[in-house]
């Protein structure tokens, strides 16, 4: 029965969100709450020589000022600070731990006061005496220090030789600047002191159990039990995968005062958290005259901190996507005196595929082949890195349906050839690719005799629609109306779930719910069999299904018993089942999502003002659980891609090692005026191999390739190739 799966069900939490009933980390109130304010470093590197808090302490209403010298105890070993998704290499940053300053904006003190305004005022009175040290924050200036990090993708053939011998060659360097997630909701934590060494932490996070485990290790000596709750998250895009420093500071405050504490970071302070690392991408593509690839060379150089080694897969996509007998990949890092870079929507792919798909466009120009045709000639039915078939790959259909919806066949290939009044019109396209990941997730169902069910799981809903799809799957599997399903998420005491990231949660949570629902069905069947003269006697689990509030024989719908009758017979008013779902480890196939993006830009010829007037994104991501929430994910991703292409950049002044546009007025993201017609197409991609329900996930695929499609459209409109993002109007003139 799929009355709900695959339908555009509205968000079950929509009403709570628009009425303000939904509570976020900073909304959990308690009487006598203490408010914190952070004093942040204004230098990128050095030591705290002296920190004077006396003036701050004199302010009426200030309760305490925590510093590295005066704070509750924290673990001394590195391992305690490694969260579930911390980079393997390195030594995680420890908030307020010692006198070392590792990056600008690092918290140096926490002022605790009776109200937020007092705390913030007193924070300005804390005097920090620095011992400043020489620092580096400029990637371009530090290229000589770049070092290679190993990546799984293997070279094929001899790419250097094949490139040199290729009939047509394209080589270029692409650049993506540091970008910030800038979720709407500020990072915040509220810690309630429950007594007896128990703390309840309301946190903005993508993984409550990750935060729970992390805090438990850091405060093993002082806290008996942490419970971490995060029912709603106002966007995160990867920023909330790792526990952020404000949660540690809030716990420190609560422990120091033995009172409940709230800390909300300012927007400026959020620029000292993770970010998409500035990355240089060097592509050298060699082609045969027929438009097949002879060589792919892809080198990426990205930023990480001095203390941790964060890197993602930038170059592997070039190895995976297209047929080429010769490939070579290099991934390098440059260590700078900045916070550790982090996952941001489609980490690695958003950057690496931007470069690859721009380079493919340039190669198409060099070959004088239509860019779509070039992709088709290089198309591969197998994962080229691992030489494996895909569980499914409907990229061909993405190309075709996207091109039809966009009208690609009407494109005049010549740059500057299409016009609309004073505007030059450009059409560009690109391919997107991401992984179809799945993780072990547990779920619990409590079914009550009146035909209601509560489904719970520690997974987060970061705005993606997890609440809704969980309800859809449960409603279908339990054969109940969706109104009878309530969903509880993001409480660390609920059944196990990893962080919500990597686009794995839709598949993982759905299977967890489906699997525990089967246990409910089996238990109901047991009850049915215990009834004398049962119409379902002799049936096995697979022979029955739950539908319309009844347990029904699949063969004969006349044989059925209602849930309420069964529970009554069994003397139960509720039935609880919990189960951890794991996926079969099958390495025989590659699992990926794909997309084709077509973009139209209009560029004022005299002034260089760029408008992205149309985007068509055709996505193949297996079974779409809910075209409405999934469509919103892709649409939002396209907007993110517009930002990447045209707006986003953290502007550093290396003379200070500071970001000069650390606010959302000056760090530009698209506003409504920048967003025009976005059409999302989900291409049919049945897949019974990726997992039983055929789900691949869509959170990230939507942004991959979008910046390239827009950059390619800008080239087509203007004849000017801009390779360093964002494409601002001055770069068109240069």
């Amino acid at each position: 029965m799929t009355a709900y799966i695959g339908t555009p069900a509205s968000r079950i939490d929509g009403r709570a969100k628009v009425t303000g009933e939904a509570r976020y980390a900073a909304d959990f109130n308690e009487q006598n709450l203490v408010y914190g304010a952070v004093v942040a470093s204004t230098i990128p590197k050095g030591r705290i020589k002296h920190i004077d808090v006396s003036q701050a302490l004199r302010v009426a209403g200030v309760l305490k000022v925590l510093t590295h010298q005066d704070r509750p105890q924290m673990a001394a070993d590195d391992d305690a600070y490694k969260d579930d998704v911390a980079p393997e290499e390195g030594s995680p940053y420890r908030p307020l731990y010692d006198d070392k300053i590792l990056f600008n904006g690092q918290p140096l003190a926490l002022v605790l006061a009776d109200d937020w305004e007092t705390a913030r005022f007193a924070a300005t009175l804390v005097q920090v005496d620095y011992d400043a040290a020489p620092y580096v924050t400029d990637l371009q200036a530090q290229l000589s220090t770049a070092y290679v990090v190993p990546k799984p993708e293997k070279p094929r053939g001899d790419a250097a030789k094949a490139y040199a011998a290729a009939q047509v060659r394209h080589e270029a360097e692409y650049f993506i600047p540091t970008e910030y997630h800038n979720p709407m909701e500020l990072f915040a934590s509220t810690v309630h002191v429950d007594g007896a060494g128990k703390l309840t932490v309301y946190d903005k996070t993508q993984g409550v159990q990750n935060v729970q485990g992390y805090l438990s290790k850091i405060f093993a000596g002082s806290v008996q039990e942490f419970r971490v709750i995060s029912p709603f998250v106002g966007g995160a895009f990867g920023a909330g995968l790792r526990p952020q420093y404000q949660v540690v500071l809030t716990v420190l405050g609560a422990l120091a005062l033995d009172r409940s504490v709230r800390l909300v970071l300012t927007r400026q302070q959020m620029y000292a958290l993770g970010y998409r690392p500035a990355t240089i991408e060097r592509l050298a593509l060699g082609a045969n005259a027929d438009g097949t690839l002879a060589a792919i060379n892809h080198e990426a150089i990205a930023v990480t901190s001095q203390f941790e080694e964060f890197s993602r897969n930038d170059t592997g996509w070039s190895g995976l996507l297209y047929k080429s007998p010769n490939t070579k990949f290099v991934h390098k890092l440059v260590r700078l005196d900045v916070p550790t870079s982090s996952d941001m929507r489609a980490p690695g792919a958003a950057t690496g595929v931007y470069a690859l798909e721009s380079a493919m466009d340039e190669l198409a120009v060099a070959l004088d082949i239509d860019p779509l045709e070039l992709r088709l000639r290089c198309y591969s039915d197998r994962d080229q890195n691992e030489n494996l078939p895909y569980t499914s790959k409907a990229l061909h259909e993405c190309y075709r349906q996207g091109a039809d919806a966009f009208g690609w066949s009407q494109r005049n290939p010549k740059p500057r050839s299409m016009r609309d009044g004073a505007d030059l019109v450009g059409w560009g396209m690109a391919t997107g690719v991401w992984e179809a990941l799945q993780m072990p997730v547990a779920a619990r169902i409590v079914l009550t005799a009146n035909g209601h069910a509560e489904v719970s799981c520690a997974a987060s809903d970061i705005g993606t629609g997890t609440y809704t799809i969980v309800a859809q799957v449960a409603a279908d599997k339990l054969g109940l109306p969706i109104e009878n399903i309530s969903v509880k998420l993001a409480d660390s005491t609920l059944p196990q779930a990893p962080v919500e990231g990597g686009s794995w949660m839709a598949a993982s949570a759905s299977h967890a719910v489906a699997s525990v629902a089967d246990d409910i069905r089996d238990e109901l069947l047991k009850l049915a069999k215990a009834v004398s003269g049962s119409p379902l006697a002799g049936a096995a689990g697979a022979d029955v299904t739950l539908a319309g509030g009844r347990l029904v024989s699949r063969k004969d719908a006349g044989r059925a018993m209602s849930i309420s009758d069964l529970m009554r017979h069994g003397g139960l008013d509720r039935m609880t089942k919990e189960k951890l779902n794991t996926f079969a480890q099958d390495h025989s196939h590659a699992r990926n999502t794909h997309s084709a993006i077509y973009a139209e830009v209009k560029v004022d010829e005299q002034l260089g003002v760029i408008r992205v007037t149309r985007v068509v994104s055709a996505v193949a991501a297996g079974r779409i659980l809910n075209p409405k929430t999934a469509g919103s994910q892709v649409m939002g991703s396209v907007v993110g891609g517009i930002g990447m292409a045209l707006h986003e950049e953290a502007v550093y002044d290396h003379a200070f090692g500071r970001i000069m546009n650390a606010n959302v007025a000056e760090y530009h993201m698209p506003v409504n005026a920048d967003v025009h017609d976005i059409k999302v197409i989900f291409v049919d991609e049945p897949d019974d191999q990726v997992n039983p329900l055929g789900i691949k996930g869509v959170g990230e695929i939507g942004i991959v390739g979008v910046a390239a499609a827009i950059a390619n459209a800008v080239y087509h409109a203007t004849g000017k190739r801009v390779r360093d993002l964002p494409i601002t109007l001055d770069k068109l003139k240069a």
Partner: protein
Amino acid sequence: MINFQYSRATDVADAVQQIAASTSAKFIAGGTNLIDLMKDDVERPTRLIDISRLPLKQVQQTADGGLHIGALVPNSDLAYHPLIEQHYPLVSSAIRAGASQQLRNMASTGGNLLQRTRCAYFYDTATPCNKREPGSGCSALTGAQRMHAILGASEACIAVHPSDLCVTLVALDAKVHVAGPAGARVIPFQDFHRLPGNTPHLDTNLHPHEIITAIELPAQGFAKNYSYLKIRDRLSYAFALVSVAAALELEGGKIKQARLALGGVAHKPWRVHAAEAALQGQVPDGTAFARAADLVLKDAKGYPHNMFKIDLARRATIRTLTQAAKGTPQPPSNKKIM
């Protein structure tokens, strides 16, 4: 943010009296700029005198056919006021090109004139800035200066005045009515804002204890041939890289009178009388407009990050004059450039 006291002014005289009585008090109107600056510790007033309830919210016609606009008329009310839309569409168009609807609802006419520069260093107390801390140096000279001045700057400061509204007010020969301890006076708009020279901490010629009470517009509104064109890094909700206000009075196929002012290029809204004079008596065509644009940018000087603004300003000037001459002004809500 520092602790401050708060009081309300009961009338203009009381406002003046209150501010004169305190050493570091500030008026607060919409608060859309002042509060941000206070949060960042750039402005540190010990007292806020709330003038937002003063009866300065009227838009009235003056005896000589002009308009008297109270200093507390919200930007959005002004933009959509029938008299403004009808007689001074240039003003309406510029306001609507600025900020967001929510900000414009809060922002006052007087506050718009007194908004401070958006130079990033001015906002960041961890960096030197002559405007914030006289004598500390100008970080923008060798730093992030993409948004900065190409005209009228000094070695002490290369910041720009960020207002859109003011560009049209200077073009239209507006006047600023102020009141202070020494009585009321009227300042021609042209003389209201200052160039940085070696006193970049002073944005305007308003005296410390004066309050703006009104803006006065003369009768001529150039409602037929005008345009306000704002070029920015995204299509809305961004400060101008360059903006141009052009207003023409055409007669017998020739330009009888021209007004031309630029925003985002200097420490004050930049009006260019020489270019206006050069347009007078000319046929409104590309040649005349190019000559005017050349005159505007004759003394322009760029810095490494904002060099592009010189050519951009030139092109934008020509385009805006063309729009004005054709009677096809840039509509504020359509981002396609006409």
